[in-house]
Structures are given as structure tokens and as C-alpha cells.
């Protein structure tokens, strides 16, 4: 499996990740090597095997449901404490709507 530079750029775009030219070059090599190793799984016939979507099945389907009652919230002030930019009780981000 050979991963090209344009594939790396495409995936980085999906992942919202800005990469430098040297990083792109290194990732081409790393991803190619690791994905080639992963091809080993194709040696196995898995037809008829259920995917392991759940790790454990010890509880009934509804066991983890709780009563729909409100909890004490964190509070606006506390929730905003770690925001890189906040104002007027909100999280602030760059403007997304142009006038």
C-alpha cells in the first residue's frame, strides 16, 4: 500500500489538521509502511464473523438508562473558565458570517 502526497493532504483536510511539508513527506512513508503491515488482516477469512461492536454483554439493553431528571449543571461561569476566548457568557470564535 503506497500512500501518495495528495492522499495525505486529502486526509489531513478531513481531519482539520494543518501539516508542514516535511510532516507530509514523513507521513507518506509512515502511513504506507503501517497500512502495508495492516494488510496482514486480509489473510484471514472473516466471512460469517460478527464484528465486535460491544466489548461486554453482561447487562440488559435498558440497564444503563437513567431516569430523565435534570442534574445540577456545571454553570455558565465555570463552563467558560477554560475557553481560549469568551465574552458576554459565550464562547467566542472567528466571525463565520460575512455581511
Amino acid at each position, binding site marked *: 500500500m503506497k500512500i501518495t502526497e495528495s492522499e495525505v493532504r486529502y486526509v489531513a483536510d478531513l481531519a482539520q489538521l494543518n501539516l508542514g511539508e516535511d510532516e507530509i513527506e514523513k507521513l507518506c512513508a509512515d502511513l504506507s509502511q503501517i497500512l502495508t503491515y495492516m494488510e496482514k*488482516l486480509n489473510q*484471514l477469512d472473516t466471512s460469517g464473523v460478527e464484528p465486535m461492536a460491544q*466489548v461486554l454483554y453482561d447487562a440488559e439493553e435498558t440497564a444503563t438508562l437513567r431516569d430523565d431528571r435534570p442534574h445540577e449543571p456545571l454553570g455558565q461561569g465555570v463552563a467558560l473558565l477554560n475557553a481560549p*476566548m469568551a465574552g458576554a457568557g459565550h464562547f467566542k470564535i472567528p466571525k463565520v458570517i460575512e455581511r
Partner: protein
Amino acid sequence: MDIAALTVEEIRVGLEARRFSAREVTEETLRFAQAENPKTNAYLCFSPERALQSAARVDEKLARGEDPGTLAGVPVAVKDVIVTQGVRTTCGSRLLENYTPPYDATAVERLEAAGGILLGKTNCDEFAMGSSNENSAFGPVRNPLATDRVPGGSSGGPAAAVAQGTAVVALGSDTGGSVRQPASFCGVVGVTPTYGRVSRYGLVAFASSLDHIGPLARNVRDAASLLQVIAGRDPRDATSAFAPVPDYCALLDGKVRGVRIGLPREYFEGLSRETGDLIERSIATLKKLGCEVREISLPHTEYAIGCYYIICTAEASSNLARYDSVRYGRRSAAVETLSDMYRNTRGEGFGAECKRRIMLGAYVLSAGYYDAYYLKAQKVRTLIARDFAEAFREVDAVVTPVSPFPAFRLGEKVDDPLAMYLSDIYTITGDLAGIPCMSVPCGTTSEGLPVGMQILTRHFDEAGMLRLADAFERAGGAEG
């Protein structure tokens, strides 16, 4: 009081006999830890105020004649991927350099309720991704037993702190071996409980179908005490299990005669010579203890690494999508547009290993590849879990090495990510199957490097696993 060698029980006895107070234990340990820390870089921060408040509560309870709890006065180090209210939690990442959580993880809440003392937060690979602790944005951790070597990862800080004696026990997290491998490299006990045994509420998510919180300690009994306190259902973690929690310490009764042990032949290929010798001698000890040892096969072992790195990177790329610098985390200075903000923040904030895993995960989940990678890996995971289910029809425990080799040198594997991934060969299967597994020290190599033996048991049979480890430890490990 020898701070660096204290056990949970010694602290309890000392407190009850009024030989020392919880405040004294806390102050002495803090002083010792702060002085010793530059040798290993195990701690990223200390929490003296909170520690002394907890110690005061324990001393007040003792003065009133109340039960101060299972972990009364026990200094605990907590891996920096587990959130602590008011105590900075970085996950070893530049992105969270200034993150101060507004709440406590359930495991932290429980250990403090049991009288435990949160001493500080310990170093780890960024977002728990790594096998050497070299991926921390705040510098690598050094192995206290050989400072030119790695402590293992990703719970390198917790393992080093416990080995160094700067904490009595520690909380780590394990996704593919991140508690057991550093425990083996540092010569301490590391326990990965059954998936769901311990609440992950407040554990910063890496790969949700594989993440566990687990204890590290200098002996099996201390690890059992910590597990006792943190185990059990938590309504705030829907994946936490309802299964009742037995009294683990009471079950450390040495009754291991007749325990059937399986040695999977696939785990004994490619071991370094000294690791192989020590494991062989450990098996001889288990036989002397009256265990019935037989060879077994776990035929899908060779597919485990490929399977694991597809699933964990896929889940990691989804979990790490939350680092968008809106609600928390460091924001890039270059933010003209919203898109810039995301891309530059993430590009500047994540280290090389996180980027590699985000990219791998995004690739295997991308349109057209989902079936070939993620779905395929989930099916292979079923086969790996079935291997263990089959084995446990014939045996009560599976015993293997933890790592093919002891602690390697800093820098030795950083340039070869695949070689680093391959070093997780023996530990990832337990996480994939969701079964309890642990590392118990068996001895040291001629260079003085510790080697760990891994024990794996059936779902929720932590008691059987700990009983066997405790008997083995008391028999002297490989020297028994």
C-alpha cells in the same frame, strides 16, 4: 518511616498506632517527591494544598475514632489524562498546557473518599499514545532504575513514581498495554481490570472501546486495595459494569494449588534471551506452588497488532476531534477564519505521534475504506476474543511475558513508529478481548533491568488473577 518503601498496610497500622499522622506522611512524601523528581520527570505538577486538606480530613477522622478508609493517608500519583478539579490536567499535550478541569474523575473522587491523598499529576505520552513516554510535550520520563532508559509508556510517569518511591500507589490508564508495559519496565505491579470494571468518567478519551483506568503499586496487595476502592458501577459512565465487586484483599489467600495455567505458544517466540529465561523460571515457581501448567494456542495472536492499530487510531481520530480550541485548549494565534482556527490550532498543538494516529484513523474511516479496515478489524477482534474464551474452557489463567524485551534506551525506537507499535505485541490482546490482565515483577536481567510476567483471566475474575500474582510474588518470583 522509610517513605520510598511504604505500603498501604504499613500506613494504616502506623496511623492507627499514632506513630505518625496523615499530615506527616503527606508532607514527608511531598518533600521527598519534589527533591527526587528532577531525576525522572515523573511528576508534571504537585497538588500540596489539596493533599494537605485530604490529610487533615483523615487525621480528623482518626481523632474522632472513625474509620478513615481503605487508603487512609496513602499518597497517590494520578496520570495526567485523568481529570482533577482545580489541578491542571495536560494529557502530556501542549494543547492542554493550561487546562484546569472543573470536575473530578470518578476514580479520583473515590480514592479521596477512601482517605487517599492526591499528591500530584504524572507525566505520560501525549493523550496516552506511546510505549516509551517519549511523546510527552513536557519531556520524557526516565526509568528510575536506569536513567538512560525509558520507563515504558504511556503510563511512564505513574510507573516511575511508584518505582522511585515518590508515590505509594498510582492511577494509570491502559488502552493497549499502557499500565502493564511501564509497570514491567519499572519493576512494579500494574493492573488492567476488566473493561467496564472501573468507571472512565473523567478519563480523557483515547480509544473508547479499549480505554481502562488501572492501578500501579509496589506489591500486589496495594494494587488490590486501590482497585477495591475505584471498582464498581458508576451511573456517569454508561459502560461501567454492574457486576458486584468482591473483597480483593480478603481473597489474597495463597490458595493457588490446582490452578490451571495456559502458556500460549505464540507468546514465546522472539523473546530476548534474558526475558525468556526469567519467564521460564517464573513458570517453574508457579509449578512449585502447585499450579497445573500446560501449553495452549491463541491462534489469532499474529493479527492483533494490525487489528489494534486500526481500531485505536479510528477511535482516537474521532475522540481527538474535540480539540477545536472553542471550549478549552490553546488556540493558535493565526486565526483569520474558523477553518484556520481549527487547522492551525491542531497543527501546532498536537505532537507527531498524535498526528500520525489521527491521520491513520481518519484514513481507515474515510469513504471507501471503512469496510476494508475498521469493519475488518472489528471482525478480527471477535476472533481474538474468541481465542481467549476457548482457552478459558481449559485453563483458569493465561501466563505470558509482558514485553519481548526489558526497558530500551531513550531515543532507540523513536524514528521507527512500526517497531514501536510491534513492542506492544503481548499486551494489546488483553485490551482487545476486554479481559483483566496484569504485570507482576518476576526478576531482573544481568544489567538490573526488571522483567514482568503477565497474567490474564476471565472477564471479572480480577480476584483469581490477583490471588495468583500475590502467591507468585510471595514465593519470590523467578527466584522462587
